[in-house]
């Protein structure tokens, strides 16, 4: 396996231009997501989904924690979300067809020709990333531009990002860079800056795409402490096994097996 590649999205320098959304769709031939005025600030695509693999969130805040709270807005957070390419990826774990696989770059990719649209990955993802496209009945999400990476190119979204809010590279390097950036921001008097998804000790074993946020993750529509659902799978099977035995036992009881045997 080649070096694990990833994204560090530094939302403190995102200008909400959505070039990443557009570049992703252009490169990957993703259909549009409908034309709906959502009245959620400047966000009209809503969330990640089968037809939006990069999504830019817009959050207008009157007074952030510790702000002076005068009249009018205090800050406008923008953040480009993407598939986290989890170390322990629930989508991949639960996929019954093997359509989802881990690439040599450590990323998680759906193979459209294998996916049967069972939709299981959809509720399995703790970040609400992957989704089924109803018109072709398959699951879609960011591939971290697997094809571009194979060709030695950086992903389209990162390439298009004017401010380098999206940084692509070997995950270890990115983590180091991110630490530096957080320190710099703290020194510059912005204690609210924090990393999200960078820790290999978190519930998904660390995200391949992690973020620098300026507020709690849920404010951006991100889960505060996601856990890969399959972590509890052995336990689940045990409980199911218990229930299965109960079922069999109950029947045995009802039929008096093996005591009441008739010829």
């Amino acid at each position, binding site marked *: 396996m080649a070096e694990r590649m990833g994204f560090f999205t530094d939302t403190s320098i995102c200008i909400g231009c959505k070039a990443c959304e557009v570049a992703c769709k252009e490169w990957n031939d993703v259909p549009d997501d409908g034309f709906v005025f959502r009245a959620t600030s400047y966000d009209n695509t809503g969330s990640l989904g089968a037809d939006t693999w990069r999504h830019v969130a817009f959050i207008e805040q009157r007074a952030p924690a510790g702000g002076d709270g005068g009249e009018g807005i205090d800050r406008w957070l923008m953040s480009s979300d993407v598939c986290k390419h989890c170390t322990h990826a629930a989508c991949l774990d639960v996929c019954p067809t093997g359509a989802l696989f881990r690439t040599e770059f450590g990323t998680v990719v759906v193979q459209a020709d294998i996916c049967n649209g069972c939709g*299981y990955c959809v509720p399995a993802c703790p970040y609400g990333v992957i989704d089924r496209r109803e018109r072709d009945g398959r699951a879609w999400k960011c591939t971290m531009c697997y094809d571009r990476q194979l060709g030695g190119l950086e992903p389209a979204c990162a390439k298009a990002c004017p401010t380098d809010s999206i940084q692509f590279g070997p995950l270890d390097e990115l983590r180091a860079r991110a630490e530096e950036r957080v320190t710099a921001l703290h020194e510059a008097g912005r204690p609210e800056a924090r990393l999200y998804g960078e820790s290999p000790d978190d519930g998904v074993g660390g995200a391949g795409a992690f973020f620098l946020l300026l507020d709690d993750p849920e404010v951006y529509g991100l889960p505060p402490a996601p856990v890969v659902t399959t972590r509890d799978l052995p336990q689940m099977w045990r409980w199911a096994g218990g229930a299965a035995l109960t079922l069999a036992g109950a029947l045995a009881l009802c039929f008096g097996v093996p005591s009441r045997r008739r010829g």
Partner: protein
Amino acid sequence: MTREQAMVPEAEFRSYYGQPVIKAPIWHEPHMPVYLYLGGLSGAASTMAAAALLSGHDRLGRTARVTAVLGAVAGAGCLVAELGRPERFFNMLRVFKPTSPMSMGSWTLAAHSALTSLALAPTITGALGSVAARSASRSAASRSAVSRRSTSGFATRVAVTPPAFAIRAAVTPPAFRPARGSRWSGGFHGALSGEGAVGALVAGLPVAGDAAVVVSALTGPLMATYTAVLLADTAVPAWHAAHRELPFLFAGSALASAGAAGMLGTPAAQAGPARATAVLGAAVETVAGAVLERRLGLVGEPYGEGRAGRLLRAARALTVGGGLLAAVAGRSRPLAAMSGLALTAGALCTRFGVLAAGRASAADPKYTVVPQRRLAEEPEETP
């Protein structure tokens, strides 16, 4: 802990325009909940068939076998309908993946369908042989044809032609049969068909069928409960958090469904164990449901609210009512029928309700954010 969570004050949390954090399950209705019901029904029924076989409840056993097949086949049909094309179901079988409950479920379903079909095979071939004395090859052909035919026609045919030998074959526990089944049953088929090879095959069916029944007593409970893991192994808070109770809920519901089917498809005189099963199933389902809502606290809310709440309340009423009816039905046909129908409806409502609760809990960011916040703030806390 359970008590504390049940009493948490109205959760305060922040979100992105109240939008969900995770994606709700996208499975279609009625396909998915009906599949869950049918899987449970088939699973419990096949186990019931085995129990009947072992305990000599021939008539009830036959109903159970038929129910098991019907449930499995119709369930597979629902799956295919969900996926859009049959090939997409077979695509599931290109890998065997223990981390995927759906993969495990697919293999279970495949095995279970095969086993329950096999379990029924002697019944059918026997039926055909006895009534029309047709050639074995043709009976084999029509068997396969029949298995693909509309379920109601199939059921009717089995019901109207009870072949004595089939019953005999079926009720004889495999353990007491000679090791070489060909000799044992070959007489009928060999004599009837006069064609050695096919005849031998057909002759082997009852034995294989009974063996299948017994083995399906292994796949059956799995069929009835794996779906709970299927749901629990997601990020849907109301499902994941319920991973202890859901299997019992489903197991109970499956028992009740199978009991109901047994009551409906078997003369009351022979349906005693089915009634007992129904009562016990209803009890297990009701208790599991109550425990679930209590233990889950905040995350369990969706089970009691909105559409899910209505469905699950209906389910509870139907299940409790059906269970009570089953308990008192005795040999009363109408009471048994009412009970059976109530339990079936209850089991269906349970599945629709659980799906709805899952959807509701995914749709409201509260159920994702609040527990995770607590977790994030008190990482020591165990689930």
